């Protein structure tokens, strides 16, 4: 048993944390988030130079990380800084490329910061069900037609990993192929938009768009990518929760009502104790999910669903209690807390909410 990160990972986390603290303060973050691009290629390159992208991938594709705890330390820091850069999509899509065994040149460029990837899987009818896929590949697998929903930072991507039916029908796990599509390919259209929690996303429509086949039977690669995505989001959430806890404790210490700091009020103290306790449970869930990435499927997916359920449940609690304990000021744009609250809420809407993963945990337990 050892709950300390390795020296390498700790150094990476420290370096990334320092960079974001110094160069990615909340005003900078808002400016980037509200910019037309919704991300910053400048910071992206700088972070690539620091090795942050390389840390997300394993040595087979030229990275130097890629385990659950590599993902953990990076996304925890990104969460603390509320970064909107396209790490999630790049990590997930890159993971598919790595595991489908090709695209070394592209991955090299990605890790050098010269290219951004997006992962386009869910569709309007999916509602978190990974097998509910209708995007159609032609029989030869050379072109794709259909629409993908709410693809994170899709406008930023040079290449997009897209899932599509090579066989079967929506709801079936078999017959889902994975493809690589280039930005600007014929028939590709993106309707981009801002996200309520910062950054941008988009609807990706393909119409006979040429694509490169990555894997014919790709469902297990999708699950693997989403599992890694859930690990990333869990740690992003833990980073956010720690920040919201610190901010709220600070407010309880300094804000006075009825002549005393409001942290003196026992009813608020006990609620804060519950919040702190639940955050420790969420951290444990994130640890369990990180460990599980190398486990056999059922064990891994149970830990993944347990973590996402926990993050969803605790996330809502932290958001609602942190705002309530702040009172009106906690709802203002001016206070960073409100932006952390929005992001934490929306993490609950990515790759399955609390209920989805609770039911999935049960189903996996019976499998």
């Amino acid at each position, binding site marked *: 048993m050892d709950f300390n990160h390795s020296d390498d990972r700790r150094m990476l986390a420290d370096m990334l944390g320092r960079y974001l603290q110094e160069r990615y303060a909340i005003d900078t973050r808002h400016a980037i988030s509200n910019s037309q691009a919704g991300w910053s290629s400048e910071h992206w390159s700088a972070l690539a130079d620091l090795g942050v992208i390389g840390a997300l991938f394993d040595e087979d594709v030229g990275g130097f990380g890629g385990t659950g705890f590599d993902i953990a330390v990076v996304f925890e820091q990104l969460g603390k800084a509320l970064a909107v850069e396209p790490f999630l999509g790049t990590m997930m899509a890159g993971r598919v490329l790595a595991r489908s065994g090709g695209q070394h040149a592209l991955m090299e460029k990605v890790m050098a910061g010269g290219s951004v990837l997006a992962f386009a899987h*869910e569709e*309007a*009818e*999916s*509602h*978190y*069900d990974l097998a*509910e896929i209708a995007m159609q590949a032609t029989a030869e697998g050379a072109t794709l037609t259909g629409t993908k*929903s*709410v693809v994170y930072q899709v406008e930023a991507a040079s290449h997009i990993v897209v899932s599509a039916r090579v066989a079967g029908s929506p*709801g079936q796990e078999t017959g889902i192929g994975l493809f690589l599509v280039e930005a600007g390919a014929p028939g590709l259209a993106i*309707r981009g*938009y*801002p*996200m*309520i*929690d910062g950054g941008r*996303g988009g*609807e990706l429509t393909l119409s006979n768009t040429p694509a490169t086949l990555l894997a014919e039977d790709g469902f297990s690669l999708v699950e693997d990518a989403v599992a890694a995505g859930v690990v990333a989001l869990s740690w992003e959430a833990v980073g956010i929760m720690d920040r919201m806890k610190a901010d709220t404790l600070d407010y309880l210490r300094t804000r*006075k*009502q*009825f*002549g005393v700091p409001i942290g003196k009020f026992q*009813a*608020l103290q006990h609620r804060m104790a519950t919040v702190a306790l639940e955050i420790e449970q969420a951290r444990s869930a994130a640890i369990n999910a990180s460990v599980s990435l190398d486990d056999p499927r059922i064990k891994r997916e149970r830990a993944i669903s347990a973590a996402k359920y926990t993050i969803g449940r605790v996330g*809502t609690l932290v958001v*609602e209690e942190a*705002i*309530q304990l702040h*009172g*009106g000021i*906690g*709802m*203002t*744009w*001016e206070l960073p807390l*409100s*932006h952390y*609250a*929005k992001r934490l*809420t*929306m993490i*609950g*809407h*990515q790759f399955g*909410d609390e*209920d*989805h993963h*609770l*039911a999935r945990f049960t189903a996996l337990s019976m499998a």
Partner: protein
Amino acid sequence: MNLDFTKAEEDFRAEVRDFLKEKLPKRISEKVRTGQRLTKADYEEWHAILNERGWLATHWPKQYGGTGWSVAQAYIFDLETALAHAPRIVPFGLSMLGPVLIKYGSEEQKSYWLPRILDGSDWWCQGYSEPGAGSDLASLKTRAVRDGDHYVVNGQKTWTTLGQHADMVFCLVRTASDGKKQEGISFLLIDMKTPGVEVRPIILLDGEHEVNEVFFTNVRVPVENLVGEENKGWTYAKYLLTYERMNIAGVGKAMAAFDHLRQIARTQRKNGKPLAQDPLFAARMARVEIDLENMKTTNLRVLAASEGGPASLELGAMLKIRGTEIQQEITSLTRRALGPYAQPFVSEALDEGYNGDPVGPDYAAPVAVDYLNNRKLSIFGGSNEIQREIITKALLEL
């Protein structure tokens, strides 16, 4: 026991429905239904329609131009207007200041200000909260010093809802500072156009401009704008808050929001079935629906007990807590129902006349904003923590 409304009350309900069908502009009810932003003009248009019918001041006696309705009638009216997606009646002049003036104002104040509330000459806002006085309202610091025929006001108010539209503000100000903090507070009416009044927007987490800070720098207010007696304002302030709680459960609003949620849950699909049939989501919906059914009856019990007067403080407090919890839970479920489509946010889609395509389902645009914005319900209007204090104070008598 008899939970039914009387024949006369049911006739009244039919009359309200007919009126709404005929007079509530479709343009406005569609904005309410779809969660689009209402403009000042929208509110004014609806107020004028209600005023024409004599139905604007639902809590005032007839002699002042009010409806003189029973609490049952007022309840029915509130329910039906909410279910018809009418805008709320902006409460500051009609539900807050009006009753205070009627009870404590001078004849001159009543005859001057009340008609102007009804005909829309003055848009009022509320000057209660201050940056250092939130839940501890009585510790307010805005100071009014008598100088001849005027008070000179200095200080700051905050969380002033729709203050950007306002012509007038009713303010709690400190006119004496010896004695208990509740003493020495006075109730002043201040013209927003007076030199020294400055309104600054507060942008909320959803990006909306709904509340404001109001700064007063040597603002001269004529002494005739003092309501009641100097240093007795706390009494009037508490009376106003009691009145505000008459419809605090928000049953109509919650019922309309639940209907909306139910429709969305029938449309959204999960695992090949409507989301409304997903066992866990269905259970969440059933829990809040039952809570709402229970609260409706609690609300009627309170109304029946309070016929002819304001509701008891602790039952009002229970309704405030549960009512806001229910509204928050419904908007939370609506957000959950959207899945990934809660995340995209095209702000322009909330304005009238937006003609871009919606992102995702056409009901998606306001949902996340609504959830976030509704966090205020348990904070404002006497936080739910303050309401719990009211309940235990009454129960424990310690």
